[in-house]
Structures are given as C-alpha cells and as structure tokens.
C-alpha cells in the first residue's frame, strides 16, 4: 500500500545508488538477496570509485534483478551470459569497474563455461553469486548447487546429484580472490566485496542466502528465519584456507571466510605483455626475442 502523502519520507541510506522509482522490488519476503544487495551498494560506496565508472552486469534469475535496482550503468542480459557480456564491456572500457551479479543456476549451470574461462583468463571483474540452492524465479527447481538429497520441484524425492562447490571451482580456475559468506555476515561480506571490487583480476564472492518461498518450504525451513538461524548456528569463519580442504557441507560446520587472495597478471596485463617485444619465445618465455630488424 502507498504511504499517505503526509508520512515522513524515509530515505534509504544508499539512495544515490538506488533506482528508487523501481521500488517495490520483486524479491519475496524472507529472501536473502535484498540483504546482499544492500551490502553490494555499501561496498561500491566504500571503494570510493566514481559511480559513473562502475557497471553491473547480470543474467537471468532473482539475483540478476539486482542490475535493475542499482543506479549505475547496468545491463540485464541473457541467461548465463553476464560474464561474456561483462568481458566485452570491461575490455572495451578498461578504466571502468565491472561487477557481475548472478544466482547459482545462472552462473554455474547455464553460465558455467563462461565462469571457468573468465577466471582462467583473469578478466578484471567481480562476480557476486547469491547461492540460494535452487532456481527461485521459476519456482524452485534443482540447480547445480542443490545439496544431495534436498527436495525441489524437479527433485521431489531429493536431488540425486552432488552439487558443485563454487569456491573450489573458482580457485581451481584461477580466480585471484575467493570468499564465501552467508546473508547474515553483513559487515564481513561488505568488507569482502569492497576488497573484491578493488582487487585487479577475477574476484569471486559467494553468498549463501535463504529462499524460504521456493527452497526452504520443501526442506523443513519454511520460515524466513529458519535458514538465517541455520546459518547462524552452523557457520564457522576460516580465512586463508584452501577451499578444497573445507568443502561446503550443510551437515557439518558451514565454512565461510576469505579463502583466496593472490596475485596473477590480469588479461589486460598479459595482452599488453604479449604484444610488447618483451616476451620471449615459448616455452622459455624469459629468453628475449632477437631485436627486430
């Protein structure tokens, strides 16, 4: 319902970064995406980057709608294709900061190939994945993140598949910054996002979030607070660990934290290097090429 005209007008603290004319948003009550979105806005502000030089690219799904609410140049593209679109955007305008907002299905199922290759190339972008363990927008189907045995509308007796561990995948593919949080880790998530945005290269931040409407109600977490409490009880913070040694496991402690922060030349650095005369011949690249003519 609309507020009466006389009600005091409350302004969102991130008003400058919000397309308030698009509110109300489409996210369900109890959904974790809104919290993550607020953290993203706060992180963008904390980076101090000029807002005209920040872009958000998204694909399809609930998380993809973030691009429609953030007031920067924002591109809501096709299902799974946010990363290759963002690759073109970044390389065409390298001075801009490019954020990708994706859900688990968008990023790792239909978009999985693009994810692994952008990480391998170390394209300078920040990929934020809200992992709600299912396809929420279409009503709760099985995703590559759905835990073994969890029920969805297309795995009504429990998913027969093992899910991907996104942080392990990102690490194996060469991401220079990898962290996992849940939607209750607001302060740490905001700090992590800020770092990720400022970090040159492919950064990946996974955020586990509640989807009571589609996932929770089929998995004994019907109320919005059920999953939040679950995160609160189970999550354990471990920084600077190899995510392969602490796989995402909902049965035991839920390991979150800043896992990887390492240096590697970005695609743009390497592109400049190979087109300079400083690179030698493969395989002994350090050997200088003979001076041209």
């Amino acid at each position: 319902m609309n507020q009466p005209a006389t009600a005091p007008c409350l302004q969102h603290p991130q008003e400058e970064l919000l397309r308030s004319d698009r509110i109300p948003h489409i996210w369900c009550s109890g959904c974790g995406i809104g919290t993550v979105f607020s953290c993203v806005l706060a992180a963008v502000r904390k980076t101090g980057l000029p807002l005209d030089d920040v872009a958000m690219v998204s694909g399809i799904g609930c998380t993809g709608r973030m691009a429609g609410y953030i007031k920067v140049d924002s591109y809501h593209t096709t299902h799974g294709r946010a990363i290759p679109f963002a690759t073109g955007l970044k390389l065409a305008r390298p001075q801009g900061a490019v954020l990708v907002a994706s859900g688990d299905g968008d990023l790792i199922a239909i978009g999985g190939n693009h994810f692994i290759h952008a990480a391998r190339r170390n394209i300078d972008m920040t990929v934020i994945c809200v992992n709600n363990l299912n396809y929420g927008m279409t009503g709760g189907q099985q995703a590559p993140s759905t835990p073994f045995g969890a029920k969805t509308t297309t795995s009504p007796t429990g998913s027969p598949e093992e899910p991907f561990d996104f942080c392990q995948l990102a690490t194996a593919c060469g991401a220079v910054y990898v962290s996992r949080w849940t939607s209750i880790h607001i302060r740490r998530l905001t700090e992590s996002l800020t770092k990720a945005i400022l970090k040159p290269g492919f950064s990946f931040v996974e955020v586990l979030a509640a989807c009571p409407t589609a996932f929770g109600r089929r998995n004994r977490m019907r109320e919005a607070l059920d999953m939040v409490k679950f995160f609160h009880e189970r999550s354990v913070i471990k920084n600077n660990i190899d995510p392969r040694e602490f796989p995402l496991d909902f049965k035991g402690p839920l390991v979150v934290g800043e896992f990887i922060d390492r240096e590697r030349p970005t695609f743009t650095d390497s592109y400049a290097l190979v087109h300079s005369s400083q690179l030698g011949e493969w395989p002994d690249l350090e050997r200088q090429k003979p001076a041209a003519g």
Partner: protein
Amino acid sequence: MNGDEACAEGALAAGCRFFGGYPITPATEVAERMSRRLPQLGGIYIQMEDEIASMASLLGASWGGQKAMTSTSGPGFSLMMENLGLGIITETPCVVCNVQRGGPSTGLPTLVGQADMMQARWGSHGHYEIIALCPSSPQEMFDFTIRAFNLSEQFRTPVLIMADEVVGHMNERVVIPAEDTIELVERKRPTCAPEAFLPFRPEADGVAPMACFGDGYRVHITGLTHAENGYPAMEAGAHERMLNALVNKIKMNRDTIISYDTEYLDDAEIVLVAYGISVRSARRAIRAGREQGLKLGLVKLNTVWPFPEEFIRDLAGRVRALVMPEINLGQMVLELERCAGGRCPVRLVGHAGGAIIRPAAILNVINDLVKEAV
C-alpha cells in the same frame, strides 16, 4: 587477399576495435587476421570459449563504446542467435559475418552453402527486423563490411554479413581506399542532462541516441520488454510500443538501407535475381544466354534483408519471368515469389550445397521458361 581477410580489413577501416572470436571453417581467416591486426591499432582480439560468448562479448564491447564484430559459420551462427536477439532488443550496434557453408548441423565445413538466409531473417526467437548484406567478391567483403558497421551505428542494431565459403576463400585484388576517403558513421550519443535522458525514445529518424558505459547517464539496459526509460515493462501495451519502435526504425529507413545493382535490365525479358557468389554464376549465364539471343538481365542484391519488395513487385509486372539461383533448395526465392505476387513466373535454380550454381543449370531453367512461353 581472400574475402575473409578483406572482411577483416573492412572492419578495421570502419573503426572496429573489438573482435570476440571463435574459430570455425570457413570463417577462421577473419579471426586470424583480426588477431594480428587489432593489437597494432590498440584494439582487442579475444578468443572466447564458444560462439554464445563471442556474441555476448560484442554486445558488452559495444556498450563499452567500441565498434565490435565477430565472424562465424552455420554451427556458430546457430549459437549466436540467442544474443543476437539481445542485441536487437537492446538496440546494440555490432556486426556478425557468417561465411556460409553447407548445413544443417556440421554439414559441409569446407564447402559452400547459402542456406542460412532464412535463419538470418528469423533465427532468433520473437518478431524483429534485421539488416543483412551479401557480398559477392573480396572487394565487396571489404566494402560491405564498412557499410555493415555504418548501418549498425546509424540504426543501432546488429547487422549481418551473409557471405559464403567461396567468396570468403576466393583470392582477388582488393582496393583499399585512402583512410580519409572512407565515409564512417558513428552512433548518436545523448547531449541532454542525464535526468532528462530516455535511452529508448526514438528521435525523428526512428533511432534513440546511445549512452555507453561511463558516459554519465547511468542507464539500465535489459533484454526484457522495456519502456522508453529502459525499465522492464511487463504488459502488452509496452510490448507493442517497444516492438513497433524496433520494427519501424528499419522499415521507415528501408530506402536508405536497401541496396541492389542492375545489369542489362533495360531490354531484359527474363531477370536473374541473385546474391553472394551466385551473382557470379548468374553473370556468366547472362553472357552465355545473350550470345544465344536471350534477353537476360540481372538484379544483384547487395542487401537481402530488408528485401526490396517494392522494386521486385514493380519489376515482376514488367518482365516475363524472374529466376533466382541460390545454393539451397529454396529460401530467398520464397520471398521473391511473395513480392512478385503472381505478376510473372518465378523459378528457383538451386541445389543442396557444396558447390556453386553452374551457369548451365541456370540456362536450362531459362530455356524451359522460354519453351513454356511458346
């Protein structure tokens, strides 16, 4: 140089500075030349993981303010259809060159085809208009690629170059004019204040100015049906408005877009309507036919989409028959037939693919037409 290389040089001359490539026969030489030449000009060649990604990367690069292109053939063209649609609905200038081979599926990777012509028109889902050019020589690969960029910038839409394996691999002399003699078109950029800017409000020419990443307009661009402000608008009225705007900007400018050449048309009784490599089969047939006393003429389609409907309708009322040679079992001939509207007979000279149309096959059809008329 060969046609593929000429296409790459045309793109560079047009100001293309981003190429999202993926190797595929018989279009690979375009990517290879771009990978060598773009870094020399401060541009980016990136080899994407598949053609879905290469098409998506073009759109991103275009919104990043660069002129962008890719090249492919049938299987890759199929994968590009998804983001071609995104390019159309978001009104993103970019160029895709399809060096056609025989299909469907993997088909004939190394041999010629002209069977993606209807895919070019309708290959992405939903209703839309498209611009497609058909070069018939390496020189036209150069010239038409420049024109493809100019049209895409002018009308803010993806433009297709529907080449074929023979034109792509044929080596001929290509004249590259002096840089300052090449006319280039750049997309309109907004000049108003950001608060007043509507990224999808067309101006009098049917085209809205484009605010790229970093221009300070902070636009929202979506593949959803959207209102003039770029925001999603999920209702029939908004869809009607948006789709009409997309279709109208091509339709209202079709006289600017459509291009064809005519040869021997003044006294022609039977007219060959041809595009791409089949133009050259048609020319040979016309020369041979004229030696036999047949009054043959040629319409060479430089643009195939939009189709020159009015011109063909008028022509069909003035000649005895129209004949279309094409390397498929009947695609553009359907459009020719539709536009002729029964005013004269329309015949196809086609085959499944893998070889060019033989001039003798064209003459056989013409001789049959002459016999029927007696």
